[in-house]
């Protein structure tokens, strides 16, 4: 028994380090966060400094990644695009986490019609493809960064509600949770003391994945002209603007495309690594 416990503890730390995907994911995500943080206090140029005479230049000392079709610094715009993406991810996942997890926990704790309502409600919202719901919401309330974030947040709600409900119901089935009730704890106290801590790893993994989904969704909305509005930079918007310049200057499309791909890849690898390490079910399977 003690041997198993020991392997488990040493297992997940060394496993993380031995997990190349997790390492790559951490590095990519770390870079994304670092770039975003730096852009808050410093960028090489102003993001909207137009200089037509210097448009579509290659990389140089003044413009590390060159300039776009208006002569604006691409590095600057990618940096601000990164903070924009992170902001969208944090807020949208935050909305989903807070509302979705509350609903999921409530459903698992109360059961009965509350459970049915949450489960069926999630199914209904889930039936609409996420990006379609987001387009619908921005079409009704108007395009803009804030509405895009809210739209992405809303389609995150059922995702977290489902995950939280499923995981919480599993924990509720455990003897220690029922024992909590037997010794007189209220369902909300059991939820707080036993359920939430036990499903936290699943939520963290899901949050990482949803973060990547949110970044992708924001890029898609901005590409469609429904997200961040010009001249504010957004990766999706940059990609859209680059479309007709593809043959003249491919870097205009490649750079924001690469930024989106790397950010999403990083977050997904991080999520995979975390799942392997944190998810109790996977862990016991591996040890078993």
């Amino acid at each position, binding site marked *: 028994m003690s041997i198993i416990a020991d392997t488990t503890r040493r297992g997940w730390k060394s496993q993380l380090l031995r997990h190349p995907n997790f390492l790559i994911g951490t590095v990519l995500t770390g870079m994304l966060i670092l770039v975003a943080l730096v852009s808050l206090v410093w960028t090489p140029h102003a993001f909207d400094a*137009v200089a037509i005479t210097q448009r579509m230049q290659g990389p140089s000392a003044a413009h590390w990644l060159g300039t776009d079709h208006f002569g604006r610094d691409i590095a600057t715009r990618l940096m601000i695009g990164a903070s924009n993406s992170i902001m969208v991810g944090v807020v949208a996942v935050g909305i989903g986490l807070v509302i979705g997890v509350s609903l999921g926990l409530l459903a698992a704790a109360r059961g009965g019609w509350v459970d049915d309502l949450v489960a069926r409600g999630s199914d209904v919202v889930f039936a609409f493809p996420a990006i379609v719901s987001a387009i619908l919401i921005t079409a009704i309330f108007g395009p803009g960064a804030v509405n895009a974030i809210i739209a992405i947040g809303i389609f995150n709600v059922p995702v977290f509600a489902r995950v939280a409900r499923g995981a919480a119901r599993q924990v509720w089935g455990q003897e220690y949770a029922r024992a909590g009730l037997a010794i007189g704890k209220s369902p909300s106290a059991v939820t707080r003391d036993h359920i939430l801590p036990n499903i936290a790893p699943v939520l963290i993994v899901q949050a990482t994945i949803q973060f990547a989904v949110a970044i992708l969704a924001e890029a898609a909305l901005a590409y469609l002209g429904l997200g961040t509005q010009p*001249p504010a930079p957004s990766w999706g918007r940059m990609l859209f603007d680059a479309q007709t310049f593809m043959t003249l200057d491919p870097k205009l499309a490649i750079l924001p495309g690469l930024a989106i791909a790397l950010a999403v890849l990083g977050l997904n690898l991080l999520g995979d690594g975390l799942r392997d390490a944190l998810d109790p079910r996977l862990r016991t399977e591996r040890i078993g």
Partner: protein
Amino acid sequence: MKTMRIAAAIAVASGLAFLATPGAQAQQKDSLTIGLTLEPPHLDPTAGAAAAIDEIVYANLFEGLTRIDDNGAVQPQLAESWDVSGDGLVYTFTLQDGVKFHDGTNFDADDVVFSLDRARADGSVNAQKQLFAAIDTVEAVDARTARITLSRPEGALLFNLGWGDAVMVARESAATNKVAPIGTGPFKFDRWVRGSQIRLVATDDTRAIRKVTFRFVPDPSAQIAALKAGDIDAVSNLQAPEAVIALQADPNFEVAIGSTEGETILAMNNSRAPLNDIRVRQAIAHAIDRQAIIDGAMFGFGTPIGTHFAPHHPAYVDLIATYPHDPARARALLADAGQSDLKLTLKLPPPTYARRGGEIVAAQLKEAGITVEIIPVEWAQWLEQVFRGTDYDLTIVSHTEPVDIGIYARDTYYFNYDSPSLKALMARLNNTSDQAARNRILGQAQRTITSDSVSAYMFQLAKLGVWRKGLKGMWRNAPVQATDVTGVRWE
């Protein structure tokens, strides 16, 4: 073994047949597919302002007494000749013989009376009623002779009659022209697949082009992809100027850069504070750098203008030097007007010139100390909010009607500009038929609006036509809104 050989032979034969078919088609190609950016709301050019209507039906489906050609000159159409009385008040038109509407009915002088009376009637929904303002009566002298009597001389009457808004329609079909247009043109309406395409077919089997399809491709990159894939043969005005450079180098395509009647302006709401202060408007005019906008938004395609007039018109006055690019002067004018931290909104309709030009204008105004919030809008919103509701500070739009400086003298127009002196000039213009005198008045009108800095005048829109090599007879210029395919053929 034998079966296999037969199978192989069939495969080879069918492969050959497959290869041979497109070649045979190319040799005797008699169809044409044109890509259009916008789908028209309906197809009656006498009942709507949408350029997309004329881009399909003008000259192809509907004809007027006169027509405007590629160079903006007036040519005879349904009227084969005309006489003008010495005082310039009576026009007598001799009509072409044997012209039939697509429903088989004859075209005669009664149709002229009906069409023009309908267009200028009090309850008419014609978008350009001012074209007919000088007409007093229209009469049918006999079946082939129509007489128009004016209440005052109108130097532009023959030109006006060549607009899409002045085409001839039949009494029997006028009410249903929106969905089932019946005209006298060489092409008749075949079918309309909503959201996709409109097809016209030739009325005469001997025409070089027998079938014309107008396909709606709103996105410029999709237009280029469709051109390259061979899905469309021509785009009469490409919205992606940056792609023109690559297409010019492509041996499969011909690129024709021509002029349009589109004065592209940064319009200002003249009645809304602080834009009601001429110094603020002049500051904005000084803040913009026309060449940078042309280079940045249109890749250099476009001609700078200093007033609301086409540079290729003989009456054009070069007023570019009135407001040279000078951010320091702009700041001084703003300080003069007591505007230290000016914030304005800029509503941008979908075309490239507006969306891209707007981003550059915003950056240029920022340099002069004006903060601009960009609000992209769709055409419907633009018409509703800006054009009809005049709920805007700044907007960018191209005014594509020929010689349309008269809009500045209208009582209600979205500029909210009210100038008695300009109205007096336009009234004088209406009573002048001598061309030199008209040009002088038009020159004075240009100076008036520029010195009042009603709008900031940016550039004359270029027409960037792209079509497959071998297609001849497409228009280079766009003197009126049209995709005239009546002279088009494959070589």
